[in-house]
């Protein structure tokens, strides 16, 4: 085994995990909401990017915002349908409804894009870098750079802007925030829109690494769940660190044991942690 190569793989996989999970981190941290359609929204983001490039001939840098707009639209629609449940904080029903949305997205994507696998090639994914016995693509570099930028911007937005302050207030106490004149609905819509845009961006970045299928998306939910819980629910920095750590784990487990069982192994790690600390490595609401 080439250790340096695996560390490199782990870094790239880890940053992609963190990027896939970022929307959920905010969703759970600010709005205390979960979205099981997350994986199918990832799938949709990948296919919209593919379609924009291969069917409509758009350049990659325009295909990305297209996918993000579709992601925001889907998130907006979901939140519109679930608004009553969100305001009641009826988590049990919200979870099942988002599962339903995932099923609908899966069906709709199958209808539009068919059931065969597609290759999502970008100008970056086709350019390889060979350095001594190491190999990576320009897409890999892009993933790491974009992930770091997104995390920095989110951190600044949550800490320094009015919007971020409102979001943290709603996370702390929705009722009190309402008394202060904050429109809680707008914050929920904003958080959902961010999740939709972020997961579509993640798909446009990460999906070119493997062939894409409309049936994918289930493992992405597990990855996201692991990142969010290991990172301390709602913590932005925690998610980044947990993402990179899980990426390393995946790279080495895949190389040393078996790539087929990485998700299962990741889940066992997560379970062990949850059994030892049922609340996860929880931090305060809207935490840092």
């Amino acid at each position: 085994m080439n250790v340096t190569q695996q560390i490199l793989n782990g870094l790239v996989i880890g940053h992609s995990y963190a990027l896939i999970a970022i929307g959920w981190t905010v969703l759970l941290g600010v709005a205390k909401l979960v979205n099981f359609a997350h994986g199918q929204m990832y799938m949709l983001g990948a296919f919209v990017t593919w379609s924009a490039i291969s069917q409509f001939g758009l350049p990659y840098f325009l295909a990305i915002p297209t996918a993000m707009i579709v992601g925001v639209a889907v998130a907006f629609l979901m939140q519109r349908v679930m608004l009553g449940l969100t305001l009641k904080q009826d988590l049990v029903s919200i979870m099942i409804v988002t599962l339903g949305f995932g099923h609908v997205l899966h069906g709709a994507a199958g209808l539009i894009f068919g059931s065969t696998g597609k290759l999502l090639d970008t100008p970056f994914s086709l350019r390889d870098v060979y350095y001594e016995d190491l190999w990576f693509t320009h897409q890999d570099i892009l993933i790491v750079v974009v992930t770091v930028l997104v995390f920095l911007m989110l951190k600044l937005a949550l800490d320094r802007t009015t919007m971020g302050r409102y979001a943290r207030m709603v996370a702390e106490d929705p009722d009190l925030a309402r008394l202060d004149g904050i429109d809680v609905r707008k914050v929920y819509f904003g958080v959902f829109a961010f999740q939709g845009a972020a997961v579509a961006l993640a798909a446009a970045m990460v999906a070119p690494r493997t062939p894409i299928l409309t049936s994918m998306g289930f493992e992405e939910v597990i990855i996201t769940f692991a990142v969010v819980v290991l990172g301390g629910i709602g913590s932005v920095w925690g998610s980044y660190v947990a993402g990179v750590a899980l990426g390393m784990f995946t790279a080495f487990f895949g190389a040393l044991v078996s790539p087929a069982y990485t998700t299962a192994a990741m889940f066992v790690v997560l379970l062990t942690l949850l059994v030892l600390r049922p609340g996860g490595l929880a931090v305060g609401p809207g935490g840092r």
Partner: protein
Amino acid sequence: MKIDLGLPFALAAIVIGYFLPSLLGGSSAIYSAFLLIAIFAVMSYGLDLIVSDMGEVSLAHPVFFAVGAYTTAILSVRHGVGPAGTLLATIGVSLLFAVAMGLITLRLREFVFSLVTYSVAVVALTVAQNWNFLGGSDGITGLPAFEIGLFGFEFSAMTDRELWPVGFLLLLVTLYVVAAFRRSRLGHAAMTVHLNQKLAIMSGIDPQRTRMYVFLVSAPITASAGWLYAYQRAYVSADVLSAYFLLLMLTAVVLIGRRVLLAPLLGVTVILFQEKFMSFGGYIDRIILGCALIVVLAFIPGGLIGAFRTLRQRLRRPSPKQALEAR
């Protein structure tokens, strides 16, 4: 609305139910649909106890269904065990899984509980696809016919029509168990924990133990549906862990109404009727099933029965003018 069936009425319903497929023409498509309705209804009743009575969402129930199907397939194909033996083994293995799952999730609640159970289902799918012991991606093929020969009683079933009595009997036993559970002390304890955990603890009910016991009742029910499903299909693959079964169970449980004995059966009937006789192809059927689930939970949380009740109350309520005249 509490439906008190009464014994004669229940017996009449059972007799009519048994002969319903032949009353509807008795084609093999009808028998297949009825058998699948019975199997999937039994599968859904296991989840019904967790969702309607415990008030939590287990997304791992497809795993219990798969445990039944795989246990049956492995024992009958590789070891030549008959249906009675595979049923006993199914119940035993599903209890072991339920204990394991119950212990792991003992202290988890709400969304962490649901996420862990969901992860169990997804991980089980990847394991089933890759592990040779479970047949890998090919699954296990060539299940023998359903043949029982006990104490001079001979029964053999090859087709769905011949399996229908088994499916119907399994459904009746399940209905009886669910009804008995709801009357039992455990059923009452589960409802108390669901509605008011603090009150439950003050009344001396241990919520964690209650949840574990409810799991132990629920898992074998869903697993026994997997047992019959294996014989019906004659092969078992990782498909039994697909999201379809989860969505089917959840929709069947919430569609008609909570804590109504026949609701999951009616829910499954509605869904399968659409899929078997009014299908628009796999993708659109998937959209319909997902939308049904979304619409019920977001807009008619009481299910169709709840919506019907609200409507009836509105119709009955006299207008203000009538109310004045009535004085």
